[in-house]
């Protein structure tokens, strides 16, 4: 695996930090454990971690210059769980700065490239994780999904990405972007790996007060349950203008195939979908404006060495340490929370959030699942949307409503358009991970896990 990374990462640039010594040490320990028949499923499996997950004694940058030299003294809860399960962690993957972006071009260090076409983006913000899985630079990876940051890059890189129900996976040690939306999720080569990784990271954590106490089902065995009779809702709002023709065709064809497994397709409506983007871009920046306030150069991370006095040090460190998109969102969020604007923006967004959630509640009274494209387009060329934030924001229009409602979603590869991977998204009610995995697995079995590696650029 380390050789493979050596061979391709100079072109893909999926990793910010590689930890070969740690990986070799963990591999040696895993070898010992594998001698016993009861070794856990993940024992010895090489994984990559998005650089937003806190790792003890391993640099954790969040893709930002402001944390360019930050080495945390503690592990995120999920990182500890993976280590306990015997996983081997090979490195920390690239991302849009503080997970703000949909192309990994907003990394404070360098962009990551799509393994299918090195002139195109891998999606984001977990672009490094998705590219690493797609380029065989690891077996699987963890990403984080605030508005689609696991599912969208998974779709664009032709791999599986799952966003769990809000609270299913502990956020302790996940560096916060938008606390009420952030969730950690797996990015894998197939649905079965996704189930195995979900098993390893799910569960209640006393360190995260928003984590759910619900028991964790056996995800892997749930894959094989029958899907016949499952009702799949097809929301008309997600097939409207803005979805690329090629993508639409591939996704509709995929949804059609679901009937072969006995699933029933139902047209539904989620009427408040059009407000999801605006709602998201009020709530997420508002929370981010507080979450990112702590980076002031006083305690850790980058600090401006030429400043005179504490005040100037704090201002200059933030001015230089943060990139343009992060500053834009801090400004947006600060504005939305300011007195005189709070009611019109933040409070109203919270009300619309309730309406969007109600749309889903109502829909799930009549369907078990909702199917949509994961992204309105395939991977776009590097540089195409960098100077147009709105068009970049629209890349997440299919994945934003789910997090606003707190529900889980999964993206599975469902074919190609313009020679690039297309993702099919399923969404389910809260704690509906098992039905998501079942449906995605059933689709994968029908379509066959396409071994299209030959088409990849690396």
């Amino acid at each position, binding site marked *: 695996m380390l050789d493979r990374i050596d061979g391709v990462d100079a072109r893909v640039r999926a990793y910010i930090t590689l930890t070969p010594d740690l990986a070799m040490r963990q591999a040696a320990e895993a070898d010992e454990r594998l001698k016993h028949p009861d070794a856990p499923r993940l024992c010895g499996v090489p994984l990559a971690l998005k650089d937003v997950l806190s790792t003890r004694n391993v640099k954790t940058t969040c893709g930002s210059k402001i944390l360019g030299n930050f080495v*945390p003294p*503690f592990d995120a809860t999920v990182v500890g769980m993976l280590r306990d399960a015997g996983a081997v962690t090979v490195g920390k993957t690239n991302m849009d700065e503080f997970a703000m972006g949909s192309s990994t071009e907003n990394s404070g260090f360098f962009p990551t490239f799509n393994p299918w076409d090195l002139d195109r983006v891998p999606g984001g913000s977990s672009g490094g994780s998705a590219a690493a899985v797609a380029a065989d630079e690891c077996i699987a990876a963890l990403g984080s999904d605030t508005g689609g940051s696991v599912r969208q890059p998974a779709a664009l890189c032709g791999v599986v990405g799952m966003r769990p129900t809000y609270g299913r996976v502990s956020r*302790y040690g996940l*560096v916060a972007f938008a606390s009420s939306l952030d969730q950690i999720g797996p990015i894998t080569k197939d649905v079965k790996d996704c189930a195995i990784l979900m098993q390893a990271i799910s569960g209640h954590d006393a360190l995260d*007060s928003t984590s759910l106490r619900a028991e964790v089902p056996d995800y892997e065995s749930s894959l094989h349950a029958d899907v016949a009779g499952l009702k799949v809702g097809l929301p008309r709002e997600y097939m409207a203008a803005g979805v690329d023709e090629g993508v639409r065709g591939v996704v509709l064809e995929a949804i059609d195939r679901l009937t072969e497994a006995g699933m029933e397709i139902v047209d539904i409506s989620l009427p408040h979908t059009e407000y999801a983007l605006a709602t998201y871009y009020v709530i997420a920046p508002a929370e981010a404006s*507080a979450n990112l*306030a702590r980076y*002031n150069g006083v305690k850790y991370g980058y600090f401006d060495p030429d400043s005179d006095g504490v005040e100037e040090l704090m201002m200059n460190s933030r001015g230089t340490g943060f990139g343009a998109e992060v500053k834009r969102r801090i400004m947006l969020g600060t504005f939305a929370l300011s007195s005189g604007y709070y009611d019109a923006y933040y409070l109203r967004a919270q009300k619309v959030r309730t309406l969007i959630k109600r749309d889903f509640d109502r829909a799930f009274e009549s369907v078990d699942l909702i199917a949509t494209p994961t992204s309105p387009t395939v991977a776009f060329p590097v540089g195409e949307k960098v100077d147009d934030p709105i068009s970049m924001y629209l890349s997440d229009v299919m994945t934003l409503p789910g997090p606003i409602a707190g529900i889980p979603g999964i993206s599975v590869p469902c074919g190609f358009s313009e020679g690039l991977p297309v993702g099919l998204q399923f969404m389910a009610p809260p704690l509906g991970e098992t039905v998501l995995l079942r449906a995605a697995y059933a689709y994968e079995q029908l379509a066959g896990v396409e071994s299209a590696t030959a088409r990849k650029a690396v």
Partner: protein
Amino acid sequence: MAARANGGYQVVIGLEVHAQLLTESKMFCACSSRYADAPPNTVVCPICLGMPGVLPVINEQAVEMTILTGLALNCRIPSHAKFDRKNYAYPDLMKWYQISQYDLPFCVGGHLDVTVDGINRRLGITRVHLEEDTARMIHGRDETGEDYSLLDVNRSGAPLMEIVSEPDMKTAAEAREYLMSLRNILVYLDVSTANMQEGAFRCDANISVWPRDGEIGNSKVEVKNMNSFRSVYRALEFEEERQIAVWESGEGPPEQETRGWHEASGTTVSQRTKEYAHDYRYFAEPDLPPLVLDKAWVDDIAARMPELPSVLETRLIETVGIRADDARQLINNRELLRYFEKATAGYGDPQRVANWITRDLVKALGDAGASPSESPVGPGDLIELLKLEDSNRVSGKMARDIFRTMFETGRSAADIVAQQGEQITDQDEIRQAVRKAIQENPKAVADFQAGKTQAAGFLVGQVMRATRGRANPARVNELIAAELG
């Protein structure tokens, strides 16, 4: 004062008190909240340091202490509460936001009854809420004259309870009484040391002054930086005078601003005016789900309510039967009260015990700079002494001297009496000493007989000296009168 005495002005005062809670751990992490004696930056963890990726977990003990306080202050406990983020940028605030409570605090709408100059006043409590303390900044200047600031993060994340009063107080004396009553309640609830000097009980005051014949407006002055009850009183008195002077000069109402109290000069100084008012951009803390304050839980907390100081004070006066000023003095010092309670447990004259405590013990403790629990004369030792006096084995004067010796040496009363000898009550023995004094002081005798009655006092002194203070003073007086009469 003069203008108000003339009926010219009315004063409006409201107080905000921040009290550190006596919990085991900090507000949102597992660090100990007993960091007072720890070296700087040693009682910290990623959570109270505000490192990337950490999350808060609510300290239930702190919530219970807050609700208990609210109940003691006659507040209503709503069915739901939540925490909010209060955003402001300052180096002592680790996350650059403070987890506090904005629109759904734990306790609302209570009151505190106080008596000032014999007048009963019911002072409203707006709310009691919970938040996290900030780190401590220490400013200094090094040998080269360069200013520096140091940060001690130990205090960061300590549980802090804020008690906000209604603007119901009309004088500095009422404000001081409110604070002392509140302090006592927190101490008797065991929720805070409420020690002002140590920063466990901090008070900010809002004060405004208005012409009595006009309307009360909205602007007010916030006064900070007072670290004793006395400084709160002085600052409010000063501010009242200053604001009246502003009105008198025709420039009222005084500008809304924040002013700091300077103890040395006895004045307040402007710190921040309205243009720099903060916009804290409060919003619900997404890392902490809202809390449901279950009635059974609140009832359970209420069941743990100890006797409150006001009730205790009434009981001391009406049932135990001590004077009101003594009762107040004991209530204001819980250790002293405990001393009193232990001493009276085996002794039938509480007022006499109170006299000894508020007079001799308090003076001796003050001279020694000791607290009641550190007293070398324990409650049992004091009672032993009182019983010696009751049985006439020592006189009142002797008892006070013996007490002093007990306090200074730690020896028992019995031991000291055994060495010094008991009181002399024997008529003949005293008469001998009196006659001797009369023989040796003919001038005093002559003076007395010439009508200078105070000369008798001189003779009494001589007798006492000769008997090393042991002669029964009443007998000595009687016999001198008899011998010279």
